[in-house]
């Protein structure tokens, strides 16, 4: 029994790893196409039909490029930093139920690697650890701009983790559990039972904080465009830089899953339509990340801190207090 469980878990891990690594690649294609459409350009068109094979071309380039380790860097830390980003992104996925459980060849499959009963806490914790990737990469690079970017990134992550945690506390109080499956079952009654209707404030706060957690554009201070260079990734080349990229895109997909499951009903009653609905919601949130990047400039660091500590955090605390009073 235990061996069967082990084999099943390993298969699940491999499948999730393969699907989301591939999705991260295809995500870059979508990002370029969507940005091009919104900025009246064509985007990638030359490689393959509609430029679809551009992903493969980029992959070949990244894998075969020389892996340069500059002279003055702290070697081991410099090498391990991109791995931390990618690995923690996928580790966080262990507690996310990607689809409702289904039967395959008479064997019931639960598409979640580990159904631990503290799912959401684990996911947020591991995503917090993911910050060590950019931080170590920047600090080990022996480059002033990388170091600046790492410091900025750490400040943004630590601040917005407060907003993430506080905003999600109100839904947790309503559901009374930290497991994402319990969140889903709480909203299984259909459209009207979604938590977003009873916790709209928490939903918006969590959504805003998700941009900071993944380091996407309005809060893209971690690789600041104003400095024309790629922040903590300046000294990186080849696949090590690619790992940072895979981590960022995988994180975007996973946080989209988390938002959909916590606030928008997840896969609902577990039917085929419900599963399709979950994928559509995830696709919408992923598209929204790209949409924001095309529509908004980066904000200044001091504006970002002002938004976090003087606007979002008080609202989140008030939201928790009101939720508590209503529940009593």
């Amino acid at each position: 029994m235990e061996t069967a469980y082990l084999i099943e878990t390993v298969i699940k891990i491999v499948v999730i790893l393969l699907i989301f690594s591939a999705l991260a690649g295809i995500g870059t294609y979508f990002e370029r196409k969507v940005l091009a459409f919104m900025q009246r350009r064509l985007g990638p068109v030359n490689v393959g039909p509609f430029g679809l094979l551009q992903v493969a071309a980029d992959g070949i380039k990244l894998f075969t490029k020389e892996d340069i380790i500059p002279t003055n860097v702290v070697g081991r830390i410099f090498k391990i930093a991109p791995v931390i980003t990618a690995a923690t992104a996928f580790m966080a996925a262990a507690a996310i139920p990607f689809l409702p459980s289904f039967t395959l060849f008479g064997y019931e499959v639960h598409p979640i690697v580990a159904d631990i009963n503290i799912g959401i806490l684990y996911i947020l914790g591991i995503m917090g650890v993911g910050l060590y990737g950019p931080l170590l990469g920047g600090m080990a690079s022996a480059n002033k701009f990388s170091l600046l970017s790492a410091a900025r990134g750490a400040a943004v992550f630590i601040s917005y983790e407060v907003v993430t945690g506080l905003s999600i506390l109100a839904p947790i109080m309503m559901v009374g559990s930290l497991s994402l499956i319990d969140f889903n079952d709480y909203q299984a009654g259909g459209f009207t039972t979604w938590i977003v209707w009873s916790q709209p404030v928490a939903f918006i706060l969590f959504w805003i904080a998700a941009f900071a957690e993944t380091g996407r554009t309005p809060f893209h201070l971690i690789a600041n465009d104003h400095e024309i260079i790629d922040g903590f990734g300046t000294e990186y080349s080849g696949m090590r830089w690619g790992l940072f990229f895979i981590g960022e895109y995988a994180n975007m997909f996973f946080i989209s899953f988390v938002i959909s499951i916590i606030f928008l009903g997840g896969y609902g009653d577990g039917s085929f339509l419900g599963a399709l609905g979950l994928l559509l919601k995830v696709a919408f949130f992923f598209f929204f990340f790209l949409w924001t990047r095309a529509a908004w400039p980066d904000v200044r660091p001091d504006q970002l801190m002002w938004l976090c500590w003087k606007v979002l955090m008080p609202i989140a605390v008030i939201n928790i207090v009101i939720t508590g009073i209503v529940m009593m």
Partner: protein
Amino acid sequence: MFEAIAFYLFAFLTISMFYIAVTTSQALYALSALAAGMIFISAFFFILGADFLGAVQIVVYSGAVMALYAFGMMFFDTTREIKEKQGNKAIVLGLSIISAILVVAIVAAPIVGNNIEALYPMVEGAGNTQEVGMVLFTKYLVPFEVAAVMLLVAMIAGIVLAGKKMDLSLTLMSEAEIMMMKEEDKNKKALS
């Protein structure tokens, strides 16, 4: 069997990480090894079935070590090795081994001495998180509240220490205003 494998794997990893943290002279290695060791410790909580404490260990210590990185950034050039003043190595080694043994003995003595039993047995049907909450808000309510007050005191002290000129923002001031402020500061120093 898998539990035993996991335990020995993570025990080895944790000890080797803390060994690196103590022995290396490179600040970045030490900090990263410390963070990794803290996160590996959470594996023991997961093996014991205390999922909540495991996740809290990850959340709390990854954030705490992050603050150490900030200090590292301020005080050292983290890409260079640090020359430490080293006294008598034998004395340091001997004292630390003795104190480690003493700590283990002090903690283990009551367990061996009078067969400690769990006074608050597991509540049927309550999850891991609920159980921590029940104990925290019944038996350990007073220490919990005292800890909360201490954190509040620390926070207010931090605000007071860091709060000089907090109402001014250099990015929002014009060049002339900043120059004027500098002049005033100079005058104050000259007067005092």
